[in-house]
């Protein structure tokens, strides 16, 4: 029941994001879809992923899109529905991707495996496995992001010095 509500919510948001004319409305609809996804995660008991989804996608990605949009274009929304020229090919690609994904999931071992009692996934478990099993990827990602952060600050500083 709650799954149905959340799913309808998500899909409606995604559809609206595709079809609305005003770009800002599209972003807001996309946010609705993101929130719906987070709701799905939460429903599955994945607290960490759910909240991270909201934090990252609603709090950062949507804002990023908005910024990019406001800084690049300032057209009035188009009066009529526009269809991109390559829509046939792109929808074919989309359908193909969906079919391949669905097929590979169905034929993989995941589907065949009998459902085991799900272990309680706590944030502590996630932290533990991040720090033991997946410590190398985590460290590499962290290093990369920190480097990006420091780099951004450095670039900003240099620009200012050049302005002076």
């Amino acid at each position, binding site marked *: 029941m709650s799954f149905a509500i959340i799913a309808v919510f998500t899909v409606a948001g995604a559809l609206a994001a595709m079809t609305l004319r*005003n770009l800002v*409305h599209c972003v807001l609809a996309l946010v609705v879809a993101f929130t719906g996804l987070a709701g799905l995660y939460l429903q599955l008991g994945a*607290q960490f992923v759910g909240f991270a989804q*909201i934090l990252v996608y609603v709090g950062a990605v949507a804002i990023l899109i908005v910024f990019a949009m406001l800084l690049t274009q300032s057209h009035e929304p188009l009066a009529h529905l526009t269809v991109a020229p390559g829509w046939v090919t792109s929808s074919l690609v989309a359908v193909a991707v969906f079919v391949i994904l669905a097929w590979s999931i169905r034929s993989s071992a995941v589907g065949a495996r009998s459902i085991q009692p799900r272990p309680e996934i706590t944030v502590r478990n996630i932290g533990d496995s991040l720090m033991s099993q997946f410590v190398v990827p985590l460290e590499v990602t962290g290093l990369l992001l920190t480097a990006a952060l420091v780099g951004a600050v450095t670039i*900003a500083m240099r620009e200012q010095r050049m302005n002076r």
Partner: protein
Amino acid sequence: MTETMDQIFVLLKHRILAHSPVSVQPIFSAALSAIAILVVFATLFALTTILERKGLGRFQNRYGPNRVGPFGLLQPLADGLKSLTKEDIVPHSADGVVHMLAPIVLVVAAFLGYAVLPLGRNMTAINLDAGLLYFFAASSVVELAIFMAGWSSRNKYSLLGAMRAIAQMISYEVPLILSTITAVMAAGSLSTGAIVESQTGYSGIWPHWFVFTPWGFAGFVLFMIAGIAESNRSPFDLPEGESEIIAGYFVEYSGFKFALFFLGEYIGMFAICGLAITLFLGGWAAPFSFLTWAPSYFWFFAKLLVLIAMLIWVRATLPRLRMDQLMNFAWKFMLPMALINLFAASTWHFTPPGAIRWIVGTILIAVPYLLLGRGLMQSNKLEKRTYRFAD
């Protein structure tokens, strides 16, 4: 007796829940907590508006509002009535739906954070494992609400204000979260309840609050600065700088919607203060071991009022920052300090307790602070301004 006093609200809730059918109990319980939070914090909001205005008056050697009711204490009532009865104006070219949704989203998002704040012993509305993450997820929605408000008004000033607000909130979110991580590391949990629990002990009469460690103190200060910026309060209130962009993202709001923005802002500020209390000031724990007889929620709200008073004091003191100062401060001071503080905190955990730990911890924070401070001050040397045309 003290035990009952301490748990009186929890007991009351259980008493009420006992009368309801089992199937609806979880929903009912959540609703009860939500109503309690709404009522308490909305009242606190009303109280704060009058205290802030009176306090600011005193800071500026004025009386502040003193006409409505005894000592002007009924002022919030008058303000509320006024905002309720005012006309709700939607600009002609505004985006109606988004314009209407923005204040609602803002207030809801601001209130969501309270669900994980431990207001007293056993008084957390939902004790989530990832409580802190939830809090930040909820508060990140505020940015979106502000953008909605600024964009939908179709007003240059409100759009500028929204852009300023978002840029500021994103910049300060980084040090905000980085400074909370120190407390998370010390408590070993993201759950707000567990973080408070880990601070409830006493050595002698002194509490084990995180703020009484070098990294905790630095973290607390960083957190509060970033938190003030996050809640768009003076001196970081550029998004609503009256002198340059009139009122920022809510220029085009009037009447009750304006009041909602006002409410959302204060609620957000209380939430940030509440989180600071949870993370660094021991949550609902009493400040001295001989004061534990007072109920836990009393201590939480006492600390909250103290922090609010601090914020009012800061607001009365500091002028508004300029945009470049704001960004420089975030990226050149707050961020490096937060990272260094993280390092200092981890060093603290790996050195054995004793004087050495204190000395090392203090040096690790004080030296970078002094150096960074010197660097920042040097690049901002003020020169005597020369006027070409005047005199």
